[in-house]
């Protein structure tokens, strides 16, 4: 075989593999979208809902818009959603945004201390953070439940079945973000902050006016990762939030799956809905994600 033929063959194989991989990743996603636009609540059906199959009923239900559907007697009747899906959506958005903002604040300052200051037990603390995060937070569910109940006795706004309470539990899982941000801080030469100190900046000013602006990319990454994981977090939210009006989207979506009746259509529409803010956030943060924001300041 000629070298060019072999090369073409290799290229084709690589493409076949990549396309196959894409199909594997995209199919479930496309199916969810299809289900949300398909009449009825069955998991199986036409992959591309057209004609009679196509319906906006699930979306109208989810968005709280009244719609017409055949009733038990065959006569069409107006159906109005009884579940506050949009409220769940708002709850999710609120919890994920506030939790992520607080996480940035906490992990950013903690990472600064670990990266720039020398104190007793520094190495040990860093390592134990790494070890502790190996255990999923779900393992502490019982403890979290008991703790929130206790806190609620003294500070009702932070107790069980409250959003601040839920956010509080999320703030316990920031070890990985501390590590990520510390890793980024470590790549920024200390001399830039020293230079700021000679220029008259305090520790805090050097942190806020020099280090933070240079670290925008990592904060964008941490914000997005935290947002994604918390907007779709189920186990803890399902235990902490007990009443329907407090639920987040992930908890609410589960409520469509009754023991005897799986409302796949509504579930799918809710799932797609929860993906929208993540997409929006990603697009908004993209300009911070450019690499090389620190370039030019120092000679490596």
């Amino acid at each position, binding site marked *: 075989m000629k070298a060019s033929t072999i090369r073409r063959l290799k290229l084709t194989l690589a493409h076949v593999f990549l396309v196959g991989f894409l199909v594997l990743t995209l199919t479930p996603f496309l199916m969810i979208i299809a289900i949300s636009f398909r009449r009825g609540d069955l998991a199986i059906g036409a992959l591309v809902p057209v004609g009679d199959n196509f319906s906006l009923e699930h979306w109208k239900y989810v968005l709280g818009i009244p719609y017409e559907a055949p009733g038990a007697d065959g006569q069409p009747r107006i159906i109005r959603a009884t579940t506050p899906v949009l409220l769940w959506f708002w709850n999710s958005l609120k919890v994920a945004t506030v939790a992520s903002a607080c996480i940035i604040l906490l992990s950013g300052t903690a990472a600064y201390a670990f990266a720039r200051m020398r104190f007793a037990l520094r190495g040990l603390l860093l390592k134990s953070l790494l070890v502790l995060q190996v255990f999923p937070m779900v393992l502490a569910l019982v403890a979290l439940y008991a703790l929130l109940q206790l806190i609620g006795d003294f500070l009702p706004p932070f107790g069980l079945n409250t959003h601040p309470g839920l956010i509080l539990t999320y703030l316990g899982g920031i070890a990985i973000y501390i590590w990520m941000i510390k890793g980024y801080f470590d790549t920024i030469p200390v001399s830039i902050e020293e*230079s700021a100190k000679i220029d008259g900046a305090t520790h805090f000013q050097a942190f806020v006016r020099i280090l933070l602006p240079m670290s925008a990319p990592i904060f964008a990454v941490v914000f997005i990762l935290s947002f994604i994981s918390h907007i779709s977090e189920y186990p803890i939210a399902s235990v902490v939030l007990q009443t329907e009006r407090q639920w987040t989207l992930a908890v609410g979506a589960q409520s469509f799956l009754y023991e005897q009746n799986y409302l796949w259509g509504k579930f799918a529409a809710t799932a797609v809905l929860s993906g929208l803010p993540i997409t929006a956030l990603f697009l908004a943060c993209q300009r911070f994600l450019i690499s090389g924001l620190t370039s030019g300041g120092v000679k490596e």
Partner: protein
Amino acid sequence: MGSVSIQSLDKIYPAAGKNPAFHAVKGIDLEIQDGEFMVLVGPSGCGKSTTLRMIAGLEDISGGTISIDRSTVNDLLPKDRGIAMVFQNYALYPHMNLFENMAFGLKLARTPKEEVMRRVTDAARILGLEQILDRKPAALSGGQRQRVAVGRAIVRDPKVFLFDEPLSNLDAKMRVSMRSEISKLHSRLKTTMIYVTHDQVEAMTMGDRICVMKDGRIMQVADPLTLYHQPENLFVASFIGSPPMNLLRGRVERREGRLVFVEAAESDAVFVPLAGALAQRAEKNLGHEVVLGLRPEAIYDEARGADTTPLRARVELSELMGSETNVYLKTGAGTVIARLHTERRFAVGEELVVYLALAKAHLFDAKTERVIR
């Protein structure tokens, strides 16, 4: 106004983990006059940067005092010491443009806007940066970046400029031009400058005085020519000058009534008679281990009357430099480099007679490593 006085300055890094405590600066004393260009030079790990950082206030002082303009600054913050510092890696603020970079300190000090404007544009004019003040550091070349770093220092109008190896990240050509630029800046501003480098060429060409350091101690402080011609010890002798001074280890002996220096070697030992002032110095160390130091340029390829002593040796290597040729000659225990002003090519292994100007030789005590006077 910008004099700096350092008294028995100590820096000890405490033991951390597996690293034992490290005594980086060992009780040094140094007086720097107002307006002086003082170069701290030495191999890496000699404590020169640590000393500079202690003057800047970036490192705690373990012992001793540092005074700037006759007042002790040990416990002052960097910004209150009247210093400005230029770092090796420039340390510019990458998210700010050049103007903001230079104005940052003034803005923190709440300097009036017009004043900030005036001082930054003045500094930019001196350094030829006026046209690019709105650029970010990433859009600049290495030389321009270092110029911005210098500009940021000028804007602070300090009593003392501190330079921490500012040229070592530049390429060779840029280094030479920035070297003369900093020298010009010094003669223009007439402000005290303390300049750390490991490059002895920078030290020799820029410094009013040079402070040679080794292992946390000062080996000698002097103006460049004194340092070159009258080194106090073996370290300074070997550190200053390129190619370095030839150092021959051996012994002073009396043979047939004359003082001679005999190289310590199994065979082919260099054997030279000593006369004049050198003989007087050698006499006191008769029978002692000494080191004879002779600069490469004090070796000629032809006799110059009675002042030179012939030496026969084999060529090991020769480097044609254009204006001169460095010839490496095999001696009993090592090599002697002769800087000969000739364009003649030397063959490896060729036997050659060179002439040593022993009146320019130095004698060092082999044990204390100090010069013998």
